């Protein structure tokens, strides 16, 4: 049981505690050096006395102090029951839990003290003030990856495409004049009644170029037929157009 004087002292110091468990640990320490040997019942009485004293002075005591006080009052009621009842056993277990929590906090407080007693880097011991770095950064290599390459290509094409002006490509087409010259040159060297296609120039890759040459050659042959320079024959509609030499040339 706390004396009036001790109670007053504790009350004054309540501000310095980090919570009810802190106070309980302090009270337990005052009882015994070994936490295993403390009397939980005595501890509860002491805590309740401290809180009662504190409330007489200051009513606005923090809630967690009062919650702990209520719980301890409950614990005390259980501990006072005759042994053997279920409630008494419940009290025993709760008392053990409390003792365990106090021991755990005590251990951590001891650990903190142990740590604090060690030479602390930067306060008690010092590492090298001017560490040297022997790490050389080599930036000579390139980071290359395919997605970046492809992305760059697309970006270039898009940008250029957006900027470019439309310019129709100039086609070099087989003109009627070209066809006339070729017909005149070939007419004597080919057999009579040769298909019009045979008079087309070779190496015309694109279909458009082939069609243009065919049209030009047909126009040229019609022109020459009108002048009597050659004869044209078509056996059936859409059949092959055949070119023959002029009759006077045949003799």
């Amino acid at each position: 049981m706390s004396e009036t004087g001790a109670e007053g002292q504790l009350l004054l110091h309540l501000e310095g505690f980090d919570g009810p468990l802190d106070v309980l640990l302090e009270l337990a320490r005052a009882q015994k050096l070994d936490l295993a040997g403390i009397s939980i019942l005595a501890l509860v009485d002491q805590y309740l006395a401290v809180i009662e004293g504190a409330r007489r002075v200051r009513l606005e005591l923090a809630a967690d102090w009062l919650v702990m006080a209520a719980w301890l009052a409950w614990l005390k009621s259980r501990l006072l029951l005759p042994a053997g009842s279920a409630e008494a056993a419940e009290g025993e277990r709760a008392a053990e839990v409390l003792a365990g929590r106090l021991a755990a906090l005590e251990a951590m407080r001891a650990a903190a003290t142990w740590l604090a007693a060690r030479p602390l880097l930067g306060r008690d011991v010092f590492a090298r003030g001017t560490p040297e770095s022997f790490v050389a950064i080599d930036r000579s290599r390139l980071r290359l990856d395919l997605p970046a390459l492809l992305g760059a290509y697309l970006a270039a094409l898009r940008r250029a495409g957006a900027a470019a002006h439309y310019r129709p490509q100039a086609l070099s087409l087989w003109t009627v004049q070209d066809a006339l010259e070729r017909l005149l040159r070939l007419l004597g060297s080919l057999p009579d009644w040769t298909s019009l296609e045979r008079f087309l120039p070779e190496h015309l890759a694109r279909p458009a170029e082939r069609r243009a040459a065919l049209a030009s050659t047909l126009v040229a042959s019609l022109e020459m037929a009108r002048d009597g320079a050659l004869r044209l024959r078509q056996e059936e509609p859409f059949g092959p157009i055949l070119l023959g030499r002029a009759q006077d040339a045949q003799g």
Partner: protein
Amino acid sequence: MVSGAGVPSEAGLRLAEALVFASAEPVPARVLAQLLPEGDDAEAVLAELARRYAGRGVELVWVGGGVQFRTAPDLAARLRTVVQQPRRLPRAAMETLAIIAYHQPVTRPEIEAIRGASLSQDTFDILLEARLIMPQGRKEAPGRPTLWATTAQFLASFGLDSLSALPRREDLLSEPLPQR
């Protein structure tokens, strides 16, 4: 003075001395091993180096899984007048740090339960700023609270080779209770 690995060569000792001196962080033995001349054993070289520096103004210590040169602890008081020093950790921060060290990984509510008091943001910030603690994943529990653990800086600051260098909890309690 040295085990069966043979007497370390002077070249190996010079290299180890230079490497550990130059490094800002503790140097693990395996890093040294890559640099040493053929036939020199890293552990043996470090042991001999530690022997040569024993009792001098600068000593070789094993911290955070490696070795580091540090000024001798007994010189602290005189050096503090010249070398800048960090502020002391408040009691709440020190206790919180101890709880994290022993219970890691641990959530903030768990720390508060052990201390029986709520944890102020200030206390937490001090530990974070000093790079003594760091988040380490989340707990698979409602709300998925962040788990906290100590850092390599914690080991280095307190001169611990590893977490297992912390005293066992039972040994802490068997010692007489420290006065607050």
